[in-house]
């Protein structure tokens, strides 16, 4: 296989996905033709309002919710902010304690840290070596003044899927609200708010082929939520600002496609994932799979490769046209190891060799074979440069 055949193998779908053609097409009329303000009463506005509601229903269906339980936001990050801060601010009279896991996305983590500065108390629940939250631990962490628990559905860096229904049951029993960040899971595995038994759930367009800049928050019927953006009565008064109509339409369309394609997609991705995981196991020594071996996203394969560093690895793969991600300290602006890798107990030098592949329906089996071939090559090259590898060979 010539490298020229494969100039672009995109394996970083957790960071961004291309916008689907069908989605772009659905969005286009709402930029110029149907541009009316949905809050106006004449035809041009009220028709657009109706379009928003139709698409709200589509997004609701994606997660088996009711239309009136969906708020459109600008992103998954905003949905997470609204869930954590919105609940905390509206329930602060009831209590000022919230619980989040140690591996939450920055938008949950830093919302919680912000609340700490506002005199809320936050418990950070540790996870085990696979990134799983223990239900006994959660149960013990809940206090009489706990108002919210936020634990992500699936983790974007290690792929681990939490036993959400088990964790949410504990909260339900104790009368504590439960939020889950489902940005990484929606469109990749079934996400049903009733089966998961959650009160709030965040999702984002970027993970399902809608554009960046649109997300949604599910909140169980009539739950009180302090808005973060004060304005008019848009989104049932929970988020001000004229609705981003084309993007809402895009998210709705992408949701319909995600529902239709889910099971085929899962089947395909599971095949690719097992190819890459077994390939790495067989062809590269001294590698650790990060995250859970089975309870993981179908298109997610992540590893720590001993004696080499992730940024160098990403750049060398880039030179072969392969795009992937890493949680290495050197690759982060703050020069800190990914908190997720720290939370699952990865030793610092091993964490340096982090690499994350996240795949989508568009990835093909031949691409995985190409990636495996180049990965072996690049790992060998970097190890030949590494002083740690020399000492390893000596053992």
């Amino acid at each position, binding site marked *: 296989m010539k490298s020229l055949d494969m100039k672009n193998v995109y394996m970083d779908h957790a960071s961004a996905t291309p916008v689907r053609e069908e989605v772009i097409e659905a969005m286009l009329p709402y930029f110029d033709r149907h541009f009316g303000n949905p809050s106006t009463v004449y035809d041009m506005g009220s028709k657009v309002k109706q379009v928003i509601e139709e698409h709200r229903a589509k997004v609701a269906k994606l997660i088996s919710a009711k239309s009136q339980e969906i708020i459109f936001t600008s992103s998954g990050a905003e949905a997470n902010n609204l869930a954590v801060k919105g609940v905390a601010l509206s329930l602060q009279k009831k209590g000022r304690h919230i619980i989040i896991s140690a591996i939450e996305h920055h938008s949950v983590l830093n919302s919680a840290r912000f609340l700490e500065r506002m005199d809320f108390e936050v418990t950070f629940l540790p996870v085990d070596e696979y990134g799983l939250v223990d239900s006994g631990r959660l149960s013990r962490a809940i206090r009489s003044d706990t108002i919210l628990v936020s634990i992500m559905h699936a983790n974007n860096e290690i792929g681990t899927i939490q036993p959400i229904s088990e964790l949410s049951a504990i909260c339900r029993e104790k009368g504590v609200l439960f939020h889950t960040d489902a940005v990484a899971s929606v469109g990749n595995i079934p996400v049903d708010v009733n089966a998961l038994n959650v009160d709030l759930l965040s999702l984002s367009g970027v993970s399902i082929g809608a554009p960046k800049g649109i997300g949604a928050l599910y909140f169980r019927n009539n739950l009180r939520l302090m808005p973060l953006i004060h304005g008019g009565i848009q989104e049932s008064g929970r988020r001000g600002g004229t609705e981003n109509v084309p993007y809402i339409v895009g998210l709705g369309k992408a949701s319909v496609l995600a529902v239709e394609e889910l099971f085929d997609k899962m089947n395909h991705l599971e095949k690719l994932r097992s190819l890459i995981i077994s390939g790495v196991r067989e062809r590269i020594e001294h590698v650790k799979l990060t995250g859970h071996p089975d309870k993981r996203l179908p298109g997610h394969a992540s590893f720590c490769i001993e004696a080499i*560093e992730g940024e160098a690895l990403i750049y060398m793969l880039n030179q072969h046209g392969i795009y992937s991600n890493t949680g290495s300290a050197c*690759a982060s602006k703050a020069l800190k190891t990914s908190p997720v890798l720290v939370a699952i107990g990865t030793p610092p030098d091993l964490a*340096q060799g982090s690499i994350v592949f996240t795949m989508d329906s568009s990835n093909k089996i031949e691409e995985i074979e190409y990636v495996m071939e180049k990965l072996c090559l690049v790992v060998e090259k970097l190890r030949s*440069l*590494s002083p740690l590898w020399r000492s390893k060979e000596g053992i």
Partner: protein
Amino acid sequence: MYSEKVMEHFSNPYNAGVIENADGIGEVGNPVCGDMMAFYIKVKDDKLADVKFKTFGCVAAIAVSNIVSEMAKGKTLQEAKSITKKTVANALDGLPKEKMHCSNLGAKALAEAIKDYEKKKYG
């Protein structure tokens, strides 16, 4: 984010390797991110006859190691000691701010190797 020079040295780090029976070895760890560099030198007539390295680190760290060995080769020990993180970064057409510490690491590892040689020689 990196200059072409950096990518060149990173992609083809031709000075990488170990010198068997090196006259001096300098090993330093990167206190910021935990990475590591080892430099090996061969000295002849007070000059660096050969310099090689092994590096566990980022793109910048690998490029730095290679260019430091390049800059040091053929220089007198005294001249080689004047290699600093600044001169290294300049030789690479600049480094991103947060990567300057990798440049420092290269200069330091070479200095350690020279020190090791001098210690062995003069006790």
